């Protein structure tokens, strides 16, 4: 009997369940305190009038009703969608083209990849955002170049139509990790596919659309989802480069949440906005997943 009890303690410690929970404990604790409880709180405050340091007052659906009437909120969703619709395809096409360019096996391949990865390494930093602001500013080199082409009085950040262009370019510029992921995908496409196609007389374009794209489709889906989510939530660049302006033209949703919550102190309202945005994003992600069955090609399905 005593023998068995000793064994139980030893067994308990080395039991797969104990081991699993010991090692997974950091995540489980983090998930509860950094995700689950904040989400529950956020959901509760979304139905409250709440400011830091004050009692939360239950107001029912008022926040949501106000959101739908709030032209600034509608605008922030529209400009974010515009940003994502231009920015994400641009970045992915760019990443894919560069990845294909760098498949050529040369001794310098590693160096080239490193150089093309540099923008991703630093692109998210405040330093680059500040540089970008001057680079595209009214006296910066880009506008000066446009001027030398004969267009006068052009100003990115003064224009409601053009202010988002430097932001999109800054995002597309950071194509490095998408590029690396595409590059490793390209490496996995069997060479004989291309050889067979070539024998059958398929040109470069046909080979790209009939072999490269279908074979890469799972990776395109992965990159698309990751970029969509991060694009939707762009913050640092917009906050520093344009401050959401001019006239709300680049006030993306995360800036809207930040401004409402921290500048105006409307915490409850900002939580409600977060939930609406989350639902929109979940819907978009869901739709992409659903339709992905028609355009993503898995080799196992052959």
């Amino acid at each position, binding site marked *: 009997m005593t023998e068995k009890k000793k064994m139980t303690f030893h067994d308990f410690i080395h039991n*797969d369940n104990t*081991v*699993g*929970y010991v090692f*997974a*404990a*950091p*995540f*489980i604790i*983090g*998930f509860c*305190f950094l*995700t689950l*409880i904040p*989400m529950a*709180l*956020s959901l509760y*405050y979304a139905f409250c009038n709440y400011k*830091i340091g004050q009692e939360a007052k239950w107001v029912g659906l008022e926040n949501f009703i106000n959101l739908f009437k709030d032209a600034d909120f509608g605008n922030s969703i529209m400009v974010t969608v515009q940003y994502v619709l231009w920015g994400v395809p641009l970045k992915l096409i760019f990443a894919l083209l560069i990845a294909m360019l*760098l498949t050529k096996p040369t001794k*310098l391949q*590693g160096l080239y990849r490193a*150089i*093309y*990865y540099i*923008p991703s*390494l*630093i692109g*998210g*930093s*405040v*330093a*680059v*955002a*500040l*540089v970008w602001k*001057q680079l595209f*500013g009214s*006296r910066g080199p880009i506008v*000066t170049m446009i001027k030398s082409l004969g267009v006068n009085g052009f100003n990115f950040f003064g224009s409601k139509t053009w202010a988002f262009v430097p932001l999109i370019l800054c995002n597309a*510029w950071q194509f490095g*990790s998408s590029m*690396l*992921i595409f590059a*490793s995908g390209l490496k*996995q496409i069997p060479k004989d596919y291309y050889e067979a196609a070539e024998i059958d007389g398929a040109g470069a374009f046909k080979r790209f659309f009939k072999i490269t794209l279908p074979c890469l489709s799972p990776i395109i889906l*992965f990159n698309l989802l990751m970029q969509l989510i*991060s694009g939707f*939530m762009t*913050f*640092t660049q917009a*906050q520093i480069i344009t401050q959401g302006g001019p006239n709300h033209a680049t006030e993306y949703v*995360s800036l809207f*949440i930040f401004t409402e*919550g*921290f500048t105006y102190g409307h*915490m409850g309202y900002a*939580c409600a906005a*977060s939930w609406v945005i*989350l639902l929109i994003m979940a819907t978009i992600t869901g739709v992409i997943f659903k339709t992905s069955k028609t355009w993503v090609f898995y080799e196992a399905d052959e």
Partner: protein
Amino acid sequence: MKTKRRIKTICYHAFVIGFGLLMIYPVIWMIISSFKMKSEILGNDVPFLPTKWVFENYPNGWKGVGEYNFGDYFKNSAIVSVLATIGTVISSAMVSYALARVKFIGRKFWFTCMIMTMLLPGQVLMIPQYIIWNNLDLTGTFVPLILPKFLGVPFFIYMMMQFIKGLPKELDEAAQIDGCSKYQIFTRIILPLLGPSIITTIVIQFYWTWDDYMGPLLYLTKPALYTVSYAIKNFADVQGTNFGPMFAMSTLSLIPVFTLFLFFNRYLMDGVTAGSVKG
């Protein structure tokens, strides 16, 4: 035929290098501007290279604003980034081992939670998380920027899981036969083999933390705690149109990230791709 191929190769390299230079032009412009006089940085007829190289921008910028200089800010950034990176490596390696190799009840459930957390944009939680840290009286400290990293970062957990799944199971089994417990399998077998994955994590998490702007913006309310990235923004606001020192400090702020990248570049290139594709 041979010369034709050679010309093609030269054209290829010329194009890749030329386009690469165009890509890093903003960085080059920043560095060069940091050595220029104020009048030569922006405007219509400014030269690409300074007519006279000036170095004052660096000491002028270093002084910062008020009672703290960039030495303090670099120290703060180093503390936050190093601790956050250590936390990420330890916790993510542990969790990835559990999810990839240990068959425990609820594993699927926690895996799903992990993926959902990975896809959940952090900005959606910025308000409630702030409220919690505020209630714990921990705003105005480094804790909100560091502690969460000790609780596993899903992106890296996922990456390490893919890596562990690629290691032969026979290793575990052989170790088990030799009398290793599951704990020892982690410390003696898996952890040493995780090397490339760990290096990728170190580089990426370090530059994420170093470059982070939103976290310091929300939580580092006292100038004594400002990290470089947040301090530069305030510094630029205060300097107004005096851009030289701002460019100088921006250049300095990127050096640690660059250095790390230069050291570990090769591993990083392999690690990123290994992690994301095999899913």
